[in-house]
């Protein structure tokens, strides 16, 4: 008996959807993380205990912090999307399985 595989692979989604599924949640998570982190930590004081020789203003600190968080969350989202890609040698579970 042939069981047609009806679960579509994620690669069928439009490009915007695939990029968005990685970029958007990571952007959102980075925004929340930045907010919580800098509510507690003053970037000025963080700068003095890390690289005091560099002149890092608060504005730059926030920006760097946000992008650092975003790089982390983006990498994680990308990793997840990679692991969720269907593999040829592993049968895909569908409702019939």
């Amino acid at each position, binding site marked *: 008996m*042939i069981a047609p595989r009806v679960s579509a692979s994620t690669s069928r989604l439009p490009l*915007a959807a695939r990029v968005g599924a990685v970029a958007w949640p990571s952007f959102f998570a980075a925004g929340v993380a930045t907010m919580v982190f800098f*509510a507690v930590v*003053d970037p000025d004081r963080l700068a003095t205990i890390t690289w005091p020789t560099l002149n890092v203003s*608060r*504005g730059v600190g926030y920006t760097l912090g946000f992008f650092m968080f975003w790089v982390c969350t983006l990498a994680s989202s990308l990793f997840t999307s990679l692991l969720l890609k269907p593999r040829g040698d592993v049968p895909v579970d569908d409702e019939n399985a």
Partner: protein
Amino acid sequence: MNERIPLQLVDGDEGTLYARQPKVYPREIKGRFQRLRNAAVLWLLGMFYVFPWLNWDGRQMVLFDLPHRKFYILGLTFWPQDFFFMAWLLIMAGLSLFFFTALAGRLWCGYACPQTVWTEAFLWIERKIEGDRNQRMRLDKAPWGAKKFARKGLKQLAWIAFALWTGFTFVGFFTPIRELAGEVAHFDLGGWEMFWIAFYGFATYGNAGFLREQVCKYMCPYARFQGAMFDRDTLIISYDEPRGEDRGHRKRGTPSVLDWADKDGERPALGDCIDCQACVQVCPTGIDIRNGLQVGCIACAACIDACDAIMDKMAYPRGLIRYTTEHAMEGKPSRVLRVRTLIYATVLLLLAGAFAWSIGHRSMLLAEVLRDRNALWRAGPAGSVENSYTLKLVNKSDQPMTLTLSLDGDTPLVLVGRQRLDIAGGEVASVPVTLRAPAGSVHGRQRVTLQLNSTDPNASQPVADVTTAFFAPSDSP
């Protein structure tokens, strides 16, 4: 015996399951719900673009002053230590989303979501420059020529200008917008300000000009989980299938099925849907509402207005597509008051009340005490023992404060040095404090509480106490 069943593997064909989405050209439509939506768009965008320019007590009314780590909202000043309020506010926002979704479905999506609001604004610009739906479709099909180039170029220019203005306003919420405007006028913009204006502008342009309904369909988490807040009494936009089907074209003057008087006779073959496609053409996400409730429906009610206009033209009663509930469609009564809405409303009211109360009663003084790290204790005059501390005081208000420092409770310790403290509005003060224990009065570790009282006899606030430890050598050396 064994019949062959023709089976086809659908997996192999490119784009069978996810058909390439054709570009959506939403047609403009007038009607009562669109007037409501336009009002919402104007109100929300107005708040966004105008608020940073308004002043309150000589200061920007809404300013999230990140460089100085202070938020000014309507005359209230918030410090990073007040972050708790923001988290609380976000919880309340989430809960009200639940409440309104349970009550009336995706109100948020249709009327208030920034994605919808800015998409409407970008669509408006597109319509002004490229014309109505048919003109836009024709323009896209037409070969590239001077006219098409001029139209498309003008639209892009207008979009980019609007997006940059949006980015500028966004940054204006974080750095004083009047200063920012001066910097822009003198081409003296800081690198990071420029970067954020461009970044936010680009995000606006990409989301509202380019991605549009794809954000709702593929990226929005709310679209995926909003169904959990729905029940059979939730307002949804629905096509009245029993009334509408079978759909089809008909001669003008054919009466509505609702007027079909002879209940014993056979129902006319044609329902009230004349299959004019108006509801499909106006849909900003390009769905056909007649296929039932779908995740792509952002509940903008454009199809209701479109269908109502057609029903008016046909002299049929309105409401072939309408706001209704599943219970109403089954002919059962719908209830607004029900366990789900009552629970959401109660929790929301409690949270809001507690929020307002704590904003009104929040302490304007923040006090913290740090022990001197260099020595546990030192010998004072006449065999006494002294400990030193740094008292960190933050005056969160804009008015100067005068405080008196005292020791709480019954303790042999005495305060050395000044006990009257003046702190300017918004100042963060570090006050050295020394405590002295007379000879032999204290051994080992002892808890001690410093109390701060206002000198103003009328004010019970601000009072703060901070507890720390006092160390003295133990009995037996």
